[in-house]
């Protein structure tokens, strides 16, 4: 009867105890943040803050202790994530590594890679970026061409990656490169590499994004030599590894909470300017928010139970990014105030940034159209 499976998930008592601890830490540590800084959400970059998160044991929470992890549950980790997002904590320096690079290495990396890399991520020391898209390969990832060729003692990389968030800050990239070409199997011949960003031949060129930030980049590879131990997993298995990685990338609460600061500010603005229409719209948004949180928690519960909710994560990301993307327009339609990045109220400030950031929500981590294609396949239409 059901196309998808969403078992409801209850957070265990230890997760709720942790929530209080996390909340009071953020209250103490983040009191200096401006509304605009909070609105940056998981794009906010602060290495010092990531080190503190590492000290608290809130990075790599579910990983084995042998690799610097804390062997806590996926549900406890979930609580830290959602509290960080609502607090507007600057988590970008560790977010990508905690979410996908670390789990990818745990799943496919060598023992040597585990010991060399994972403890540094868990401490909040190592910043990661993800090299997937290329100038001619976006949604059609399998068409990527940047080559990695075998040499006597390793690999030789060339080509370019684009839209690489934090490449200018990153210590490592996990990059997807073409190691062979088989016209009959576009998804074959791709391999993932652990790339030290200090390796000679790598140039990072900033790309100014729509809101005016320089946080994503073009990364050019010119005759970059890597040793043999930089290959992650198996040669030619990159597509399957990336697919597993994307499931982590798509399943988190950051896929519906990116513009939560608008909702918080809008509620206060409407308290000062009461209207029936405003109240109705807030009620509708709360219904969507509560439902999305229930669905998102359900994914966390399935991950904790060792299941792979790839299809359900796709559903939640599509619904969630629709919600976070529509918040700026809804706020603007309810309030007769201009978005103001300099001298506005809290709402005007966060709006000025999030109006411009919102188009990216349904692009990053897989476009809306790609996600809906995956859902259609899940329905048996493709």
């Amino acid at each position, binding site marked *: *009867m*059901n*196309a*998808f499976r*969403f*078992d*409801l998930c*209850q*957070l265990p008592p230890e997760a*709720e105890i942790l*929530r209080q601890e996390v*909340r009071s830490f953020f209250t103490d540590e983040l009191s200096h943040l401006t509304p605009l800084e909070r609105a940056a959400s998981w794009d906010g970059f602060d290495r010092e803050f990531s080190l503190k998160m590492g000290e608290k044991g809130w990075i790599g929470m579910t990983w084995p202790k042998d690799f610097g992890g804390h062997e806590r549950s996926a549900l406890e980790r979930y609580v830290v994530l*959602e509290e960080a997002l*609502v607090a507007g904590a600057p988590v970008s320096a560790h977010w990508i590594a905690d979410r996908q690079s670390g789990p990818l290495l745990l799943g496919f990396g060598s023992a040597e890679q585990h010991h060399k890399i994972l403890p540094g991520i868990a401490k909040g020391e190592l910043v990661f970026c993800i090299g997937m898209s290329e100038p001619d390969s976006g949604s059609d990832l399998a068409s990527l061409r940047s080559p990695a060729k075998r040499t006597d003692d390793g690999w030789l990389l060339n080509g370019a990656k684009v839209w690489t968030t934090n490449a200018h800050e990153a210590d490592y990239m996990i990059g997807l490169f073409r190691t062979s070409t088989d016209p009959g199997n576009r998804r074959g011949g791709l391999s993932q590499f652990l790339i030290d960003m200090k390796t000679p031949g790598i140039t990072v060129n900033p790309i100014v994004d729509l809101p005016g930030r320089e946080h994503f980049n073009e990364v050019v590879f010119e005759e970059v030599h890597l040793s043999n131990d930089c290959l992650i997993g198996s040669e030619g298995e990159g597509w399957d590894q990336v697919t597993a990685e994307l499931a982590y990338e798509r399943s988190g609460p950051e896929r519906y909470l990116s513009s*939560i600061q608008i*909702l*918080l*500010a*809008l*509620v*206060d603005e*409407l*308290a000062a300017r*009461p209207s*029936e229409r*405003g*109240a*109705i*719209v*807030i*009620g*509708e*948004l*709360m*219904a*969507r*928010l*509560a*439902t*999305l*949180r*229930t*669905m998102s*928690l*359900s994914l966390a519960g399935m991950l904790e139970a060792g299941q792979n909710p790839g299809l*359900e994560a796709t*559903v939640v990301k*599509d*619904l969630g990014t629709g919600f976070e993307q529509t918040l700026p327009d809804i706020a603007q339609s309810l309030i007769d105030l201009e978005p103001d990045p300099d001298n506005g109220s809290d709402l005007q400030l966060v709006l000025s940034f999030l109006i411009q950031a919102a188009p990216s929500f349904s692009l990053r981590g897989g476009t809306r*159209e790609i*996600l*809906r*294609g995956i*859902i*259609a396949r*899940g*329905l*048996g*239409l*493709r």
Partner: protein
Amino acid sequence: MTSETATLLEQTVTRLFGDLVTDSILAAAEDGVWPEQLWLALEKNGLTQPLISEENGGVGATWRDSYVIIRAAGYFSAPVPLTETIAAGYLLSQSGIDVPEGPFSLASPPDNGLSLTKNDQGTWRLDGEVLRVPWGRHVRFVIFSYENMIVSAPVAGCSINRGSNVAGEPRDNLTFSNQAVEAATGAFSSARIGALIRAAQMAGAAERALEEAVGYANERVQFGRAIGKFQAIQQNLAVMASETAAAGCAADMAFQAADYGEAEFEIAAAKIRCGEASDIVTATAHQVLGAIGFTREHHLNFATRRLWSWRAEFGSASSWALKLGQATIDRGGKNLWSDLTARNSNIKE
């Protein structure tokens, strides 16, 4: 996690509805025929009073367990007051009124100058009209809240002005005159519990509409291929499927919360979210099914006409959103998130 009780209930109800709710039974019900065989089978299998304790002749199930029954009633368009009987039975038992033999109806709290008085012998008397009572002509009692009371009125002694909703389900106006009724104070209002059952029914009907639309898209050939192979159709059906999933989760969330307290927030959220999903689900299903979907010949109409009816019953999405939104605004932005997370943590397995 799905309990053993819920699994058993779901198997029973799916088999029973699958066997007994045919398109011809549905059409006959719209013409006024009471499906006696279906009702007796539901009673015999304990599906009409799942929430009543086993000592009192019920199944002793939770709201969470009962969700599967009520969702299935929506999925199959069951033409009987099953969901109303379950909810009304719960209201009666909660307020200490003996649960008589069903079927029951559940009505929205009347706001039209009803009179409920206690006479010298301590008997409650009811005067006035109760409007749009689901299945009024077919039930033995109608249960509703009035101020802080739960009232159970026998239908035998009232005058009935027949009406219906756009799905052809009876929605009758009942006029009572100095009618002896049972009444007791009750915490759960019939408006809220009505919204709860309609949300789950909508989730079920949305699932059915999705199945009909996907099935049709895979069979119907135009331009030399199944229309489901066209990206335009795939993208629309993907949205419809996500909305259906959201409706199911919203309703499930509310049923779970109903086991642990007033659940006003979750029930309001579920009625709003299922209503929002219904808009998209009905529109997309009819777009995909084309002309055949716009007939009484195809099953789809039983699901979509119910979605249009149910989204308006026991409070529209907007009326619930006004309450929920005002409560949120009154609490302020600083409490929004902590209130939301605290609600979830009140629930214990």
